[in-house]
């Protein structure tokens, strides 16, 4: 006990009781009150990016991420076996767009679109997210190519829409000059053309890739040459 405090005995007994009762009432009241739940249908229309930026008071990076945290609280409770099925993807896209426009250097909205919301078991909703990723890629191909690569993989394997996957892969190949882009991403359009049984087109693209000078690594060049030779063998064996 410090000199500025009097002993506890000076506190009247009714005040002890009032404090204990008040504390118990507060805790019981709060524990009893249900936490507001967010249903998928509750996702409100997205604000405009300009409004988010104005509300950020000069901290757009923080507000963009807070907006993403807000959005991700909707739908998918612990017992929800069909995640995001009831979410309005038009509104969701608006929120992702607003968050991305508020902080264009953030990967959060694109990660959420390509890795989370596009995994929904609903082809139309998946396409909506892939289209959002493609749209965002076209604005900044150098910085957002990994997300379009992911979108192309999803279009190929989840949607089984090879023409959509090829369109994304073609844009990836055509618009990205980032030397860090791995070989599998550069070759994606070729693989998809092979899957579509367009062997002639795949052969032309492989040859073009070899001649373009983009492949500096000898191992990569050897791998692509081997694939070209294998492709030529397949074409020769076809009736």
């Amino acid at each position: 006990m410090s000199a500025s405090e009097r002993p506890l005995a000076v506190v009247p007994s009714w005040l002890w009781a009032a404090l204990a009762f008040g504390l118990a009432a507060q805790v019981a009241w709060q524990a009893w009150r249900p936490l507001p739940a967010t249903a998928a249908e509750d996702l409100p229309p997205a604000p405009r990016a300009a409004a988010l930026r104005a509300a950020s008071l000069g901290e757009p990076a923080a507000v963009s991420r807070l907006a993403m945290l807000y959005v991700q609280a909707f739908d998918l409770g612990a017992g929800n076996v069909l995640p995001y099925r009831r979410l309005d993807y038009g509104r969701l896209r608006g929120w992702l767009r607003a968050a991305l426009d508020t902080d264009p250097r953030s990967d959060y909205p694109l990660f959420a679109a390509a890795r989370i919301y596009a995994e929904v078991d609903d082809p139309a909703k998946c396409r909506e997210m892939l289209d959002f990723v493609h749209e965002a890629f076209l604005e900044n191909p150098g910085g957002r190519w990994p997300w379009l690569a992911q979108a192309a993989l999803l279009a190929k394997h989840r949607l089984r829409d090879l023409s959509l996957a090829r369109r994304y892969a073609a844009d990836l190949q055509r618009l990205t000059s980032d030397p860090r882009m791995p070989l599998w991403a550069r070759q994606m359009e070729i693989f998809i053309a092979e899957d579509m049984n367009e062997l002639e087109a795949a052969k032309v693209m492989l040859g073009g890739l070899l001649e373009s000078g983009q492949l500096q690594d000898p191992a990569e060049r050897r791998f692509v040459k081997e694939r070209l030779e294998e492709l030529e063998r397949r074409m020769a064996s076809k009736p």
Partner: protein
Amino acid sequence: MPASLLLARATLLEARRSGLPWLALGLLAAALGLAVFLSQVAVTESRELQAAFAAALLRAGAAFLLATHVATSLVREANDKVLELALALPLSRSEYYLGKLAGYGAAGLGLALVFSLPLLLWSGPAGVALWGASLALELLLVCAASLFFALTLAQVVPALAAVAGLYLLGRAIASIQLLARGPLVEENWLQWLSRGAVDAVALLLPRLDAATKSEWLLYGPPSAAEYGMSVAGLVVYAALLAAAGMFDFHRRNL
């Protein structure tokens, strides 16, 4: 007249003769002026925009003005030794505390009344009445918090910072709880611990996000159950703060 009522009357008189009424009028003019300005640039829902904006600004402004008034008034009294003088009179510490709280609460009631009336320009009387009553109780809670922190911390800035922290947390805690329960949150012991900590803190905070909502002015009054829950939460927390404040005040060696 009981001593605590006399003290409440003196506290209310002090509030009336201080700069508080002028600041309140200034805030009212600023809120109405800004609301009218924003309605001119809105392409739709101009009435709703004015009501929502003015209500939100007046609510936050009232809480700030009252918290500042209570903290500065109490710290000044302590510095001028008015507190010692008051306690030398035949007045118990509980009577002093409750008298002060009643006086500041009455000032809050006056502010709530003055800030509610202009909202009748854009909204129905039922919604405005419920909003105003909720604001009065919210301001009573703010008074109780300011009284508690000002007497405990005995300095203006720490007391105001504590009240502001409590108020902002009270308005944000439900959203924080929802974020902690988000579907994309990875389940591990750290997450479990942090969610438990957030839930524990929430038990000790008022749910200010559920009170004095501007949507009551826009879309009509809430259901009786919803309104009752929100104002009961305010009353319970104000009572808890008053009890905690009196407890601490009784222990102080003046």
